[in-house]
């Protein structure tokens, strides 16, 4: 958890984006639309949405909350930023959880993409990333990647996926 608290951290993130890259900030608002989502980091959670005027509303999570939510922990964020963990493996191992409709989940990941892409050119966002990393636990790199397939699949399916060039690399293909 950032020292300033998750609500203040999210507010600083959006403020930094508004100040440094208004186009990216507008994209975030378009992606979020009128949706509300619950964001959890470590043991803190907040509900976030943009109101009709585009102002960010962040409130402490209470009760059941929105049906769309995502959560992770600072160790996972640190592992991602330190290149010890791929997003794919974080999702497959449950270190990142996102729940919602397909559109909601896609929108959450798209918002994260816009924030990371903008942070390349925004020192204010880079400072926030450093803040998040400071003091985060460091875990050794996992020896193996998470399995793409939760259960065994048959040779016919493997052959078909390979033919379509959709086979994950763990089975000798390129997808995944």
């Amino acid at each position, binding site marked *: 958890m950032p020292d300033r608290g998750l609500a203040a951290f999210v507010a600083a993130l959006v403020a930094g984006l508004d100040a440094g890259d208004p186009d990216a900030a507008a994209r975030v608002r378009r992606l979020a639309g009128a949706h509300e989502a619950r964001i959890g980091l470590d043991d803190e959670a907040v509900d976030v949405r943009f109101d009709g005027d585009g102002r960010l509303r962040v409130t402490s999570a209470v009760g059941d909350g929105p049906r769309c939510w995502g959560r992770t922990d600072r160790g996972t964020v640190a592992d991602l930023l330190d290149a010890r963990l791929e997003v794919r493996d974080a999702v497959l191992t449950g270190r990142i959880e996102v729940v919602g409709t397909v559109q909601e989940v896609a929108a959450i990941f798209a918002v994260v993409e816009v924030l990371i892409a903008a942070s*390349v050119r925004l020192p204010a966002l880079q400072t926030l*990333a450093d803040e998040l990393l400071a003091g985060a636990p460091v875990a050794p790199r996992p020896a193996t990647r998470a399995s793409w397939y939760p259960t065994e699949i048959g040779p016919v399916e493997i052959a078909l996926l390979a033919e379509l060039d959709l086979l994950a690399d763990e089975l000798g293909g390129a997808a995944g």
Partner: protein
Amino acid sequence: MRDHLRRPPANDPSRGAYKEWLHVNAFDHETGVIALVNVSVHGDPDAQASRAVGAALVHVPGVGWAGNAEVVPANAVGTDVLTLATAGVAVAVDPSGARVAARARLPRDQVDLSLEGVPVGPELSATSVMPFGSGHLGWAVYPRLSVAGTLGLPGRTVTMDGAGGYADHNWGRWWWGDDAGWDWACWHAPDGVLVVFSRMTNRAHTTTGLVLLTVEVRGRVVRFVDDQVLVETSGRLWPSRRLPGALAALHTDRTAERLPSRVVVHASNGFDALDLEFDVRDVAQLVMAEPAQPGFAFLHELVGAFRCVGLIAGVRVDSVGLGVVERAG
């Protein structure tokens, strides 16, 4: 080997597109360990958004990659006549040409690396500057090095003494994301053979510009250019390590980047000839972000072992060694 950094002057209108780096490779033929150390600056050195990247990657056969890439503000990078240093990674070249030093201290990755190389080969080429993307790319190649030092890695320490070494310096003006790329390679054999390959390409690597293959065999240097050099690739490999983490997360679509598992080079100029076969052991991907405008490029470092046979300046060559192929675009 006399050289210097090309930091942009204050009145340079193209300083926003400035790029520069110092690069060192070390090849320990005894253990098969290959180290890559690079410190680079991207963008106007005084602009708030510009970044410097210190990368130290070590590949251990049978284990994989150790190390990381550290991204810091460009105005925090330490510089000297021919030195670039982030907080954790530094490359320094003695401007007189007497030695090259690389240092990396990345405690979060349990990497503590200290290498020093001294030139043991002849001068390889004059400094060259070539068109690249929207601007230009300069390149200075330093003589073959003998490298000594220690690599503190997770769970092991590797001591190098008389390992092979390569170092170079690049600079220029372009934007990452331009329709431009390159293939570059350095192969080193312990019997005094160094092969350096470069060709400029477009971003998709479907067109080729200047091609240069420089072969040094125990002090004798032969160059092959353009259609004197044929490169063939086959097989498929994917990056097992992607850096820096934030940019890797942004570009999950490049996780399954297809790269060759084998590279074959044939070179002949009518007098000299070389055939080289390189088997790739592993691949790392470095994502380069343009700080001044939207744009990214992907640098792939392919490490492995090679064998080459041929006749260079009247000397028969039949050598095995270690190498790095870099594919950028």
